[in-house]
């Protein structure tokens, strides 16, 4: 190692002078990138503190009731699934999960079905009022739900969609439409039109162009929009709180929310275990598709 270094400096006298001026320690640091390693260690220490609430929750979920008594900071030794089993029995998780999955899947499919064609129209045709149309649909993305909830409640009542999972899924779909449209429009606009032109020459109509050319080409964009929609519907509370009254139709957020007011909340392990159970699907989705999700979150933002 030293030989190589001296050989190099021999060939370059000016560099040798520069290096010999810098102190020995600084040279070592530079050679082995110790500063970079040090910064990385500090960064990971900080992120550990940042994630400490999550780590603490996981730790406490694996404790027995007696283990909780030792204080929240103690280690779960030995780790048990007792709290998971108890919370599984006290909340009807299969039902809650089924309801939430229904909402997430129907809502997401609806959001994508509703926005794919307008995204195509807006990215390919110059329509009079097209921009206005786009801006109008976009308001759903930044509108606080509370601002319209009173009349929306009346609308849902009149349509007979109160206390119905289908109704809630439709609301989620319409709300997800804005973001999905914005994202898919950007995505479709970045796809070259040559393939489409070729298909049109062969006599394809608009539906065929969309079905056989644009949808397959925008599949990654659709996957990104779908994962973000699923996560946001899975975690949604407000609409479910207002529109659903039947406990048999509650999504997981409502089940969890009811539990926090119950007696179980007097200890750590049951709520902690319930939290983990409810978030397993989104965490799984995140670990599988975090690349997609990150890209969707910065959507259009910085680069499509």
């Amino acid at each position, binding site marked *: 190692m030293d030989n190589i270094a001296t050989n190099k400096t021999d060939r370059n006298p000016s560099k040798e002078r520069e290096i010999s001026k810098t102190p020995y320690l600084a040279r070592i640091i530079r050679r082995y990138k110790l500063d970079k390693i040090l910064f990385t260690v500090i960064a990971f220490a900080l992120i550990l503190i940042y994630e400490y609430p999550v780590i603490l929750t996981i730790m406490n979920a694996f404790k027995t009731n007696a283990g909780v008594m030792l204080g929240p900071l103690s280690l779960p030794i030995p780790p048990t699934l007792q709290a998971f089993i108890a919370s599984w029995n006290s909340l009807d998780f299969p039902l809650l999960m089924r309801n939430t999955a229904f909402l997430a899947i129907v809502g997401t499919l609806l959001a994508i079905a509703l*926005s794919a064609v307008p995204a195509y*129209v807006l990215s390919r*045709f110059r329509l009079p009022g097209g921009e206005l149309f786009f801006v109008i649909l976009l308001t759903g993305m930044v509108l606080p739900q509370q601002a319209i909830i009173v009349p929306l409640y009346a609308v849902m009542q009149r349509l007979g969609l109160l206390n119905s999972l289908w109704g809630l899924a439709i609301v989620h779909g319409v709300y997800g439409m804005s973001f999905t449209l914005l994202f898919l429009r950007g995505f479709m*606009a970045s796809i070259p039109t040559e393939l489409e032109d070729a298909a049109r020459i062969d006599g394809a109509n608009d539906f065929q162009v969309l079905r056989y050319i644009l949808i397959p080409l925008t599949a990654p964009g659709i996957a990104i929009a779908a994962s973000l929609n699923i996560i946001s519907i899975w975690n949604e509370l407000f609409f479910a709180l207002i529109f659903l009254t039947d406990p048999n139709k509650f999504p997981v957020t409502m089940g969890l929310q009811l539990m926090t007011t119950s007696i179980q909340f007097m200890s750590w392990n049951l709520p902690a275990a319930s939290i983990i159970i409810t978030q397993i699907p*989104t965490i799984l989705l995140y670990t599988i598709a975090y690349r997609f999700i990150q890209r969707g979150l910065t959507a259009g933002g910085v680069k499509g």
Partner: protein
Amino acid sequence: MAAFIPPETAVKTREEISKSNLRGALHWRYFRRDWFKFVFGIFLPLILFMIFIGYPMLNTIYLSLFDWNGITKTMKFIGLQNYIQLIHDPHLSLSLTNNLLWFVLTLIFPLMGGLVLGAILSSGRIYFTKVLMVLLLLPITFSMVTIGTMFGLITNPVFGALNQVLASIGLGFIHPDWLGPNLAIYTLIAVSSWSGLGMTTLMFNAAMGQVPDELYETAKMEGARAYQTFWYVTLPSIRPIIGIVTVLVAIGSLRAFDLVFVMTRGGPFRRTTVLGYMLFDEAFTKYHFGYGAAIGTVILLFAAVLMYFYIRQNVLTANN
């Protein structure tokens, strides 16, 4: 930051869209060829939007002029009485103060923090930045109910972890009631900031990755120090993104509801009430629908200002 902030910031896409418009856009005459585009491309989305978003938006203002309990069919027109009552409602000023506090403090912590973290992550002085980013973004997969429950356990005065941590590092003499009347709103904002930090960091980090390297090289040749480069090169280059994130943070603070609902229910002594919670309380627990609609109109007013900035930033400049 309920669920996630749809973080739409269009800089590159905008250019791409306008470019593709120039290249391959079809005149609207060609649009009329197929019925399919009319029905599924314009009418259906527009009608659903109007039913579930557009009409309620306008109807909020209309309903705020009535005395209505939300159940019976009879509504009594009372003019501006709801607004007069609202101005004299002590909870309104409390809510407005809390919302403003929420906005200002989330500007400081997630926004500034995200800016600094984004700069650090894109500086190339750290290994494994992608792993760090994944970990930092983990809270976006949690619902606000989850986060609220988690921090409810942590800040609990009896068996919470936070006071125990303080005790274990020798600060046992501070054992505040984190959800007590004085601290609760700050605790809520801190929790909300915790969950939003990953998002802002991601956006700023991505924006900084787009700044052309030549600018940094020039700055380096001129002998700029790291903070000078950040101040004079990085910050001006990502100014549009900073504007958009600011608007999103403001919308997030206007939307604040879930955390308040889960952690404090507006209490203790209504000290943590925000506009969204106040509306929920009036309309859906006391059945003052007209009054709730008046609060909704106030929210809508603020939202309209923010939407204006947001859309101007995103869309209207898109084709220029």
